[in-house]
């Protein structure tokens, strides 16, 4: 499956609808990065949410930066607080 990448701020209600979830692949990631199925429904949604297009590398860099910041925040937690959650782990965007 081919994807497009963008950043967009989730404003809440109707940011994405049930029908849009049926019409194209959509997955959110740290840093307000969205991976969007590359079809005309996905294109329409990027326009609807005023998404800022990114290359895959640019999107990955944003996600990596957010996860690194979350890792730093996690490492600063007390041992008791760390026991309540897992340390964020970097991953590759599709």
């Amino acid at each position, binding site marked *: 499956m081919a994807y497009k990448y963008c950043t967009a701020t*989730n*404003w809440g*209600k109707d940011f994405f609808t049930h029908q849009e979830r*049926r*019409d194209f692949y959509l997955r*959110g*990631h740290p840093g307000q990065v969205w991976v969007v199925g590359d079809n005309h429904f996905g294109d329409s949604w990027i326009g609807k949410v005023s998404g800022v297009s990114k290359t895959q590398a640019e999107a990955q860099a944003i996600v990596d930066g957010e996860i690194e910041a979350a890792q730093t925040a996690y490492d600063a937690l007390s041992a008791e607080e760390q026991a309540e959650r897992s340390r964020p*782990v970097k991953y590759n965007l599709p």
Partner: protein
Amino acid sequence: MADYKGIKGFKVQSLTSDPAASQMAGGTWSAGGALNTGRSALGGSGTSPTTPIVMGGAAPANSATTETYNGTSWTEVNDLNTARHGNASAQQGSQSATLTFGGHGPTTGITESWNGTSWTEVNDMSTSRRKSLSVGIQGAALTAGGHTGSGSPGATVNTETWNGTSWSEANNLNQSRESMLGGGLQSSAIAAGGDNPDNALVESWNGTSWTETTDLPAQRTQGGGTATSNTAALIFGGSGPGSTAAALAWNGSTWTEVADLSTGIDGNTGSSGSTTAALSVGGSPVVTATEEWSAPAAFKPIYQGQVYYNTTSNALKLTTKSISAGAWASGTDYPTAANGFSGFGTQTAAMVGAGPTAGTATYTYDGSTWSAQPAMNNASPSTARNYCSGIGTTTAGLFVGGEPAQAFTEDWNGTSWTEVADLNTGRTFAGNGIGTSTAGMVVGGYASDLTAVVEEWNGTSWTETADLGAVRQGPGSSGGTTSAVCISGGDGPGSITVDCYFWDGTSWTEGANVNTARKFQGSSGPASNDTVALTFGGDIEPGKTVNTEFYNGTSWTEVNNLAQKRRSYARAGTTGLGLYTTGDTHPGVTAVTEEWTAPIANETITVS
């Protein structure tokens, strides 16, 4: 000659939403209103996605904030008396009457009751805890498990019930855990996954005691969930490990994957309702986002090849199989464990017969039960017809050849077997046949030696046609007399190959190879063309394999594997719904049946 549809066209149905295989399969998540205060590990109650209430949580400091939702936006209402996170709640409570209990700040047993306006502290739980299970309503709640805040690991099996006034000890969980998903009512609940460490355990509460039941497909903790009983639950998000977007539905016996959340998240809570209308709220570290689950009761059943116009998304669509998402599930064991059986038909209407220990016996399968059918006529010169080739359907099929290099052809009319014209070249190990009972083929196999000879059946007699490019023993095959593929197989004693040959109605041409060389494997595909095919299991010299590969008309891709390694099979079906039963597991033989199912997915045709 053009037919009526070719001249006049056909009517395309207009639908307001996409068809679905079931109510839950038609469910999706949409964006809900954002919380005013982002947080994780919060409590939540509600009976519908438009009337929930959430309380407490980590923001990231312990929060006393309470918010209610109207289906569009969240409104802050009166705070809890005690700020905390990891608090549980009466999951099926409402905006006018609910309960929250326990939590961390530090770990506590404090219970507060909501009357629609404000929180009042009531009697504490006996066991202070955080991240325990949320169950029940304001006047009849239950909690189980959680972390007691002391010791290591500190997770407890303790269960308590609330009668509207005070907490009482009840029968414990079988496994101590915290951060479970699920919920329900005091009389019927489900506790899934959890941490101690992360696990996939599931326990069912019948109002009196906990019983272990079907595990989750994978470990999951710290996610959202909602349940109306121990037979109806939905869980979503959580850590598995790493934040997941996956959602699973529970029907009392099976966990089924349904549509994902838009975003992988943990520390979210389930609020509102039921398995068909729910809400995921917040998440780690301080998420304001919410998502609304809706599985509409009114939906059009889906069927493959369906063409329709979706008036909501303004698109012409068709449904097609998403083969890569297919998987094998257990079917009903064949009556006899052995190798050398053959089969034809479909997953839910299959004919399987012969085999070395079963003589000429045959059975049909309806998707759940094997039923004895009349035996074939010819077993000579041995008492068996093992390693023959099957072609067709359960109302019109053929078994052809068999060990040792027999030429017999028997025709099945849905009721009885009739001997018809023999092959020109008797053979065995030719794998499954191709096509239909009136236009079929058998490919290669073993005659007096390995052979490349191919014969074509016209409903009356066999005619030799163009040979394969190489001798071939135990190949998989798929397609029909005008378009087919011969998949790998053996090309010499003890050898296996990845080579595939494609038939265009006139000649065979070598094309895309499988990734895993094999012989005596199963294969499935349409009895008409070579554009899609599935091959699975087989002999990989040495040993057997569970490997399954899908051909999309261009190349072979590995998909989900069989559960059991084996070769020398009986198979039936297509790439969407396949069947594999019996076989040689070396050592030993098996009667196990596995069923391949690829979900029907919507694929969009671009509107001009």
